[in-house]
């Protein structure tokens, strides 16, 4: 079973989003899932004052971490090393995969179990392992489902949210030997657990993500609801954690504050079922735990965002997914249409750094700028301001002061920029505006019935017979 390599395909956004809006079943799945998640989140934050205070705190903690990023990363590495964790730095996805493959080769590991990790999706780790003849089984139930279906996650928290329980029942019956169709959710989970439980015991290496890496203590903090994360990080003899360089925080107490926002914003849970604080391999006097613990710290374009004081806020993200849960565009097209590892509003602002603006620029236009994401973001990322900035970058004249990112200017189209120049000319020259708007109202009978994309779905816009400025003038007489 192979997952498609999907994260370089942002250019096909228009086709995929069209297919998605015309898929009634998909639309229904996402609508009901988003409604459910929005309601659950709202129920968690009944006190607006508390929420706003927490968001201020979350923002301050993340901004503090990013303002001290180089120092904190050094401190993290030193602490982790002292705790017996091997730290690896990876600039690219290929480098991250190479680290994993080297460890596998050295230890003759053939079987991997994986906890949920979006960074492992980002680097395409499963493909790299598969190519090396290594089985890597996803153990998060949602991830397991999309892996079984040969798909990619459609949501960063709930990877299989695009599927109904009926579809999952059909999938299990088709792919798992001896399993009969059922749409009973508890039964489906038991079936999945049965398969996974055996694999934990057999695995050589466990892979996990990291929610926050604490610099002062060298602690990897990992949350989950199924216990599979704890299994992946304790049962196999080697644990490899992989995360982005931005996930560091200065102090252990910062985890408490951020985690009072994370599950409530993400799934509307007061707290996760499992919170793992990982501080190193098994010590001599301990019964459980792996012999080796590794942490891979991935850059993959994040340093470009870090270097720009406005775009740095992108890295404040704690990956709760609330922005996509509240996005009117995401609710209509789902996660796969974006074609990137990270979909929705956060995907649109982080992907240009991971993939280059030339590959990702269509996504920065896939927003109505309604601010729903900004309103719910637990760490107050100014997502819409960043989207506007990336739109500027995407259409900047190459070589101009506005073109500062990898792939800037790739979205510039001569016709479109000519239209905007003309628009600007009309609306910034009063005489020209007066003349143009006068002609539009006097010639209203001649207004086109076909107004391009507007009239594909709507009746035409027709100018009023007299402009407001004409009515005011007449009234003054």
């Amino acid at each position: 079973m192979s997952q498609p390599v999907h994260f370089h395909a942002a250019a096909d956004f228009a086709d995929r989003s069209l297919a998605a809006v015309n898929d009634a079943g998909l639309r229904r799945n996402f609508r009901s899932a988003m409604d459910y998640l929005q309601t659950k989140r709202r129920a968690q934050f009944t006190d607006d004052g508390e929420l706003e205070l927490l968001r201020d705190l979350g923002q301050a903690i993340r901004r503090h971490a990013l303002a001290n990023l180089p120092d904190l990363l050094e401190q993290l590495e030193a602490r982790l090393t002292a705790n017996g964790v091997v730290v690896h730095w990876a600039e690219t996805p290929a480098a991250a995969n190479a680290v994993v493959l080297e460890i596998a080769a050295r230890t003759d590991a053939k079987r991997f179990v994986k906890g949920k990790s979006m960074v492992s999706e980002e680097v395409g780790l499963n493909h790299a392992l598969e190519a090396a003849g290594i089985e890597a089984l996803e153990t998060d139930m949602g991830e397991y489902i999309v892996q079984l279906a040969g798909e990619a996650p459609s949501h960063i928290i709930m990877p299989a949210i695009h599927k109904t329980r009926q579809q999952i029942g059909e999938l299990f019956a088709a792919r798992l030997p001896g399993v009969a169709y059922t749409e009973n959710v508890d039964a489906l989970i038991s079936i999945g657990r049965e398969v996974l439980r055996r694999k934990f015991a057999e695995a050589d290496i466990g892979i996990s993500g990291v929610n926050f890496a604490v610099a002062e203590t060298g602690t990897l903090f990992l949350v989950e609801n199924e216990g599979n994360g704890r299994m992946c990080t304790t049962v196999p003899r080697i644990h490899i954690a992989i995360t982005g360089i931005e996930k560091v925080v200065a102090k252990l107490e910062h985890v408490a504050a951020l985690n009072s926002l994370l599950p409530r914003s993400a799934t509307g849970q007061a707290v996760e079922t499992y919170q793992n604080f990982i501080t190193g391999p098994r010590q001599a006097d301990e019964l459980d735990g792996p012999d080796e613990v590794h942490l891979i710290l991935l850059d993959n374009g994040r340093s470009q965002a870090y270097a720009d004081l406005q775009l740095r806020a992108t890295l404040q993200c704690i990956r709760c997914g609330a922005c996509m849960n509240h996005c009117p565009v995401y609710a209509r097209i789902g996660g796969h249409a974006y074609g990137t590892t990270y979909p929705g509003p956060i995907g649109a602002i982080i992907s240009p750094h991971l993939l280059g603006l030339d590959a990702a620029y269509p996504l920065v236009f896939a927003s109505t700028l309604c601010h729903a994401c900004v309103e719910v973001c637990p760490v107050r990322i100014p997502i819409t301001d960043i989207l506007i900035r990336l739109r500027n970058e995407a259409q900047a004249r190459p070589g101009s002061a506005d073109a500062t990112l990898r792939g800037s200017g790739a979205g510039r189209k001569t016709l479109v920029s000519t239209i905007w120049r003309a628009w600007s000319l009309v609306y910034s020259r009063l005489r020209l505006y007066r003349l143009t708007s006068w002609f539009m109202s006097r010639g209203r009978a001649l207004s086109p019935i076909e107004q391009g994309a507007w009239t594909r779905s709507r009746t035409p816009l027709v100018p009023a017979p007299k402009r407001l400025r004409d009515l005011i003038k007449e009234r003054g007489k």
Partner: protein
Amino acid sequence: MEHPHGLSRIYPVKPADVYLFATCLIDQFAPEAGMDTIRLLEREGITVHFPEGQTCCGQPAYTSGYPEEARAVARLQLDLFPQPWPVVVPSGSCAAMMRHHYPKLFADDPPVLAKAEELAQRIFELTEFLVQVAGFAHPDSGEPCTVALHTSCHARREMGSHETSAALLANLEHVAVVEQARIEECCGFGGTFAIRHPDISEAIVTDKVASLKDSGTRRVVSADCGCLFNILGRAARLDEIAGSPAPTLEGEHIASFLWRRTGGAEQ
């Protein structure tokens, strides 16, 4: 009245004079909404000044990623309001542009930035101004009716003026404001988004039209013409497709609705 975080502001006492920035959409497509705005303000004993040099706030280019083109247009508006009077804008979206985004647009040009920041402090969305500054309190003299309120995303999340729009309607004795599903969700307009992503925009606005109709009314009011044109244009097209003999959803700017309900001229 509670405001979204960061949107609270101190309101001036009722002034003798205000400027009207009417927006390009009202000037060209909905001038009656502009006239009703003037009438509402004048009835409060306020003299309304309409600087003839106004064109557009520049938001279409700003949100489309053409900052230079947006600056050229916005720059023209900055000199139109020399007196220290409030500037009333009958659109939450355009008001948010002038109040919150002008300072960002001119961040690298200190002399102009000072001007933009000064102006930003004086920008008020119409319903915000009527409630918080003018103390609007006129009895409803219309026949009983139902209406749905659509508040634009920028009114709701950047100006906090969804609450003042709702308060004005709530004070109309014979008007029942209906509950609608997902009232806080975008209508799918998004300026040039409607043109750039017509299919997604259509999907969103179709849902918006459905939830408005499901709310049990045939009339929607809004303080934003952009959303209104999008919603009503889609509703009218759906009526055409269905062969409906009469419109199933009608709407108007909240200024016109308020003016008519509170004793303004019959339409």
